[in-house]
């Protein structure tokens, strides 16, 4: 359970990156955080594991005020996958990199091996466990950075632009990981620019603009036509399915699935299953 109470963060330069945000995120919720660059998304999520501390306001995680804990302590609860993998990778092998996090958290022996293998398999890196990370391409290093956080098996997982730079297979992998984390009851928060990804895989979308949360609801609510002016004011466009549904007068259809269901024609044809290639 995450409670963000009237959070304000002002950088030393004077920039008011987060300008009074209050959010409650329940255990096991999946939340997509969207908004322009500079709207405060990254700054906000960094308060969850203590990398940023509030200028005003509080962040309370499972009843504990985050400012009373060190970053390394919060790491047992909140796993944050950085956007740039090269600012994190240091080990000589993929496996060594993935083991670093869980080791720090005190895992050892079989528990460590299992956590590592699960993370490697989930990100498709099991075959390269002994490869040097810098022999992998950039997009696979990004998956490695994600794996190293997954292996920590934290109840809260925060992903900073996970699909950026991935090809279709990589995106499918990320989508499957999000679904599995949700099924496992973990809280998943993702910063993303991909509206289709946000609408299809997250039950809640928070739109940020200039340090404030301007929209907060389910994808159907957020991408409803009534909210399009707000989205436009922060240069965001609803996903194609939403635009088509609105044009056909079908109400709010944020995903392809919703659109097809509303259309209801074709005698209940099957909705195609997107399995990763």
């Amino acid at each position: 359970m995450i409670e963000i109470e009237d959070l304000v963060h002002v950088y030393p330069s004077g920039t008011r990156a987060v300008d009074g945000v209050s959010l409650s995120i329940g255990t096991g919720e999946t939340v997509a955080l969207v908004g322009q660059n500079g709207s405060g998304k990254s700054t906000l999520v960094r308060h969850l594991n203590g990398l940023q501390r509030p200028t005003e306001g509080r962040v309370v995680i499972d009843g504990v005020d985050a400012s009373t804990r060190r970053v390394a302590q919060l790491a047992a609860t909140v796993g944050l996958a950085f956007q740039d993998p090269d600012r994190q990778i240091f080990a000589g092998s993929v496996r060594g990199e993935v083991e670093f996090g869980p080791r720090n958290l005190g895992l050892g022996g079989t528990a460590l091996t299992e956590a590592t293998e699960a993370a490697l398999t989930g990100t498709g890196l099991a075959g390269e466990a002994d490869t040097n990370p810098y022999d992998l391409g950039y997009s696979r290093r990004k998956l490695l950075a994600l794996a190293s956080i997954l292996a920590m098996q934290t109840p809260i997982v925060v992903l900073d632009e996970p699909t950026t730079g991935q090809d279709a297979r990589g995106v499918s992998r990320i989508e499957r990981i999000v679904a599995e984390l949700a099924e496992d009851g973990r809280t998943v928060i993702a910063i993303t620019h991909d509206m289709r990804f946000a609408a299809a895989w997250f039950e809640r979308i928070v739109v940020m603009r200039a340090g404030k949360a301007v929209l907060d609801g389910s994808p159907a609510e957020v991408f409803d036509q009534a909210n399009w002016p707000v989205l436009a004011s922060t240069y965001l466009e609803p996903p194609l399915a939403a635009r088509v549904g609105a044009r056909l007068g079908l109400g709010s259809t944020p995903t392809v699935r919703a659109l097809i269901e509303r259309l209801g024609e074709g005698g209940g044809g099957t909705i195609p299953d997107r399995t990763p290639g």
Partner: protein
Amino acid sequence: MLELANATYRYAGYAKPVLRDVDLRLGDGEIVGLVGPNEAGKSTLCLVAAGLAPASIGGELKGTLTLDGTPATGMRTHDLAERVVIAFQNPNTQRSGIAATVFEEIALGPMNLGLPIAETVARARDAISRLRLEPIVERDPQRLSGGQAQLVAIASLLAMRPRHVILDEPTAQLDPAGTRLVGEALEALAEAGTSLLIAEHKTDLLDRLCHRVVLIDGGRIIRDGATADVLGDPSLEGLGVEPPARVRLARDMAAAGIGRGVIERALA
């Protein structure tokens, strides 16, 4: 015109070539998209088309790169810089590190070409206005957001007024607004006669911008044709390339048994 003929390229120290028998032509004012799964050779193709492979990074190139009728073999990198430039996806590595303001950063390129001061300033101002960077001209380049930094990096290249611009995933770190801005600037460039090669995952962007799209896999060109034809090809997904949203939606609706008429009405 930029022309690659029978290009086969092998990185220095590697046994196998990453590009095989690639033919590619960029006409003046053409915008050509480059799609393919990761590790198919998109970035390598970009480096070869820009002449940096092998002129800067070594390796072995069989086949030829011709820039506006002149073969690029033996050209030094600063000779290449006057004709073709390449933008990478990471804005941090494209920053010179020696400019105090965004304006200076953008002016460095033309200045390095030995141009008179008035010309340098004019070109810098032009690039700034194209990408609408006026609000940040006085800012420290080290203190920009990722998206802003990428726009500055692209502007720094445009200020050199090259005939050919290669872009390797230029919008990877940009938000939708930044992506649109870059797209508009690139369109205007092409209208002025510059030829562009854009490697991207965002097929929606390529759908809007490109006259032609090239599909690469395993180092070979698999398809090279009109944007609608290539991006509408059903084999794209199997190859790891996400088709544009409208193509995917139409396909999903058809697979769910929804009639053609409805689909056409939906995507009109």
